[in-house]
């Protein structure tokens, strides 16, 4: 699966995107985020601040309980500030 990070989450993880295999026992966006937090401590910090990390699954906004599969693209980012 492809994991993407944007804005200051990209800077804190030190990577814009990474390819990983769906880890065993991970079924939802929330579980995946927690697992990724072990690789990227500063991503874990951001996750701990509730409401600050948004998630898109295959380029569509989803809630933390959305199911993930190995072929998905999952993106994490802060609240948007365009316009």
């Amino acid at each position, binding site marked *: 699966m492809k994991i*993407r990070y*944007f*804005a*200051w989450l*990209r800077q804190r993880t030190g990577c814009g995107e990474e390819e990983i295999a769906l880890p065993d026992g991970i079924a939802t966006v929330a579980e995946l985020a927690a697992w990724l937090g072990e690789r990227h401590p500063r991503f874990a910090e951001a996750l701990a601040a509730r409401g600050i990390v948004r998630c*898109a699954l295959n*380029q*569509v*906004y989803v809630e933390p309980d959305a199911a993930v599969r190995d072929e998905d693209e999952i*993106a994490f*980012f*802060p*609240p*948007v*500030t*365009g*316009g």
Partner: protein
Amino acid sequence: MVRVQDEPFDVGAEIAAFSWGATHVGGIATFVGLVRGTHRGERVRAMTLEHYPGMTEREIEAIEQEARRRWPLDAVLVIHRYGRMKPGEPIVLVATASAHRAAALDSCAFLIDWLKTRAPFWKCEETDHGECWVEAREDDEAAARRWL
């Protein structure tokens, strides 16, 4: 129509090309968002907009569809830039055309309100104290909620 682009755009030319000559159109509303030269009292030298290619277009198109579902619109144009911009440069243009004035005005406000809280863009400002990611504003969230 939705365009997401790195290149600057010419507001006057875009508006001049938008939906004129359709004789059932009674009103055209536009909004242009510009890079401001100050933010929280600090001078902003430049700003870089990061975006999520693919999702950005998809999300703005979804917002356009929602606007068309709510109002009888003859034409919709959204242009949004990404990349590095200087103060005074246009970031975003929204234009709507309708037979009815209220539909054009309300849908234009709706489009920019939802764009600001849903389209995946992130602003990073360059000030005298370095680079800084702009934080989301509660009043933008409040403006977007007006339409729920």
